[in-house]
């Protein structure tokens, strides 16, 4: 088993080609001086990034208010999702690892549950439930409650429903590795409970907090299935891309994709670096 055969190696090489081919063509055709993201190659251009539309009739990403708005919408969703995921995930991790109460095993199982629910089903169930709540409250309060209608706030809730599981798992895994005698030692040396938390426990958890935040950010940015069901008039990036792809898009979509890849690559390398520094 230690000497891989030639066919095996060939297969590995073909596999990685297969893995990167779609990403590569997306990146390459972002620079094609053509109306459509298709061959033949008509020369190099940055028009699809910065162009105002003077050359091809359609603007580049950075000059197109529609793309810019969708990127902005994605951030409007991803940032609250990431912050809440870390905050609530930490509390949940504490419950799972530190608290003792009846029904804890059941609660732990419930926390895993969102992972086995299809995203579309999560989306429609939250949509239906919050509509009912909104209808009830509106009848009662005699006012409009747009916050519970399809739109970015509902997208935040929908994404949180399963991203919380991920962030809880990441933080709980780190907390499980924590040596409780460190807290006792700090307490023994005269620190107050709050100080122990601030100077010992949270610094120990911080790689997991950052990690969970970044993962939540990425998952939120990329989520499509749940978001699709809950989105209102303001479309986050994946929804905007989906719309464009159905209609046949200009290479501006390749440019957006390339920016997205670079962003993800950046976050991934931050991730890898902090993980390495930990070891």
């Amino acid at each position, binding site marked *: 088993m230690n000497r891989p055969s030639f066919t095996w190696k060939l297969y590995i090489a073909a596999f990685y080609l297969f893995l990167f081919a779609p990403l590569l063509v997306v990146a390459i055709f972002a620079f094609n001086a053509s109306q459509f993201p298709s061959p033949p190659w008509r020369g190099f251009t940055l028009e699809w990034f910065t162009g105002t539309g003077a050359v091809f009739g359609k603007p580049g990403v950075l000059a197109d208010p529609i793309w810019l708005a969708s990127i902005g919408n994605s951030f409007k969703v991803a940032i609250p999702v990431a912050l809440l995921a870390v905050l609530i995930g930490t509390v949940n991790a504490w419950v799972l690892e530190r608290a003792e109460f009846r029904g804890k095993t059941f609660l732990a199982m419930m926390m895993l549950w969102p992972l086995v629910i299809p995203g579309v089903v999560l989306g429609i169930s939250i949509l239906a439930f919050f509509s009912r709540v909104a209808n009830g409250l509106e009848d009662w309060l005699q006012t409009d409650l747009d916050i519970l209608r399809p739109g970015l706030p509902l997208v935040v809730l929908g994404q949180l429903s399963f991203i919380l599981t991920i962030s809880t798992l990441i933080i709980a895994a780190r907390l499980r590795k924590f040596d409780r005698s460190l807290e006792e030692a*700090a307490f*023994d*040396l*005269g*620190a107050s409970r709050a100080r122990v938390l601030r*100077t*010992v426990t949270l610094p120990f958890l911080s790689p997991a907090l950052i990690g969970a935040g970044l993962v939540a950010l990425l998952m939120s940015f990329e989520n499509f299935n749940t978001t699709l069901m809950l989105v209102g008039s303001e479309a986050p990036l994946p929804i905007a891309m989906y719309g464009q792809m159905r209609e046949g898009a200009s290479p501006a979509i390749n440019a957006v994709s390339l920016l997205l890849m670079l962003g993800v690559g950046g976050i991934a390398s931050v991730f890898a670096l902090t993980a390495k520094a930990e070891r």
Partner: protein
Amino acid sequence: MAASSHTATDLDIVNVTKRFGSHAAVDDVTFSVAPGEFFSILGPSGCGKTTLMRMIAGFEHPTSGDIRIRSKSMIGVPANRRPVNMVFQSLALFPMMSVGENVAYGLTCRGVSRAEAEERAGRMLERVGLKGFGERRVTALSGGQRQRVAIARCLVLEPTLVLLDEPLGALDLKLREHMKIELKQLQGTFNTTFAYITHDQSEALVMSDRIAVMNQGRFEQVGSPRELYHSPATPFVASFVGETNRWQGQAASASNGAVAVRLSSGAVVQGQGSGAAQALAFVRPEAVALAQDQSSLANLPNRFEGRVSAVLFDGAASSLLIDTAGFAEPVRAVLPQAGPLAGIEVGAPIHVGWTADAMKVFAA
């Protein structure tokens, strides 16, 4: 010992009991530790010594009884307000801080200014032989250095009492031997009261001024290392502290502390102690005299003839196992390192003997 609370003591444990459900982990324990003393609690794992120590530190609360430090009751005082600091089994050095920050931690908790805390931590590191290590990460230290940081972190707070929970447990044998001596010297230079718990009798014997032997939640005996070794008060202490031969039998006759015991395997031995019907007899390997002819053992009350069944060579701790008529298990004796018996081989005939004083007899 009950009277010692009237004299100056650093620690008084008064009738302390700790129950977990119906199980008493610590069962009515009373003792005192004098200032500057190196006091050890020695016992097998699960004997309750860790629970006892955690109660002194303030991580557990006694079911009944009192814990006093310098005559002040600690009941209801949280761990972070007790003048007691603990060296943990895992050492529990803060991996997210430098060596200097670890040592300065307790000082900053007390509100000492950052600059002063750093300076005092630096001086303390110097005293434990870690000058200039302040900036290092704790993960970059050797086992012995980590040990010293853990102790320095406590000593810098000038506590009344330092608790040490088997801190040498994780070290390899060589370093452990070295650290025993170093710990003892450190304690001497700082003249701080140490309470040390361990399951390793050698650690306790080498370092302590006094040792309490603990078993099943109770103290079996409290005394100096020599007292425990030479005059064990209970069969548990006799077999737990040091190597020993141990035989079972019935007391044949008893008068004035002198007991004759007929072993189940046949031999009759003369010893000192209890004349209860069911008896346990103990004799240390080094108390067993060896000779090639019977005449040189003539004045010993216990004399037997046997044959060497095994030579367990271990340098200075070498011993012989001698199959002896009338004994169910071979007699263990120290292998002489010089003289005619130094080169003795398996199968050689040999005479063994010991005095009645060397043989302790307890009720089984």
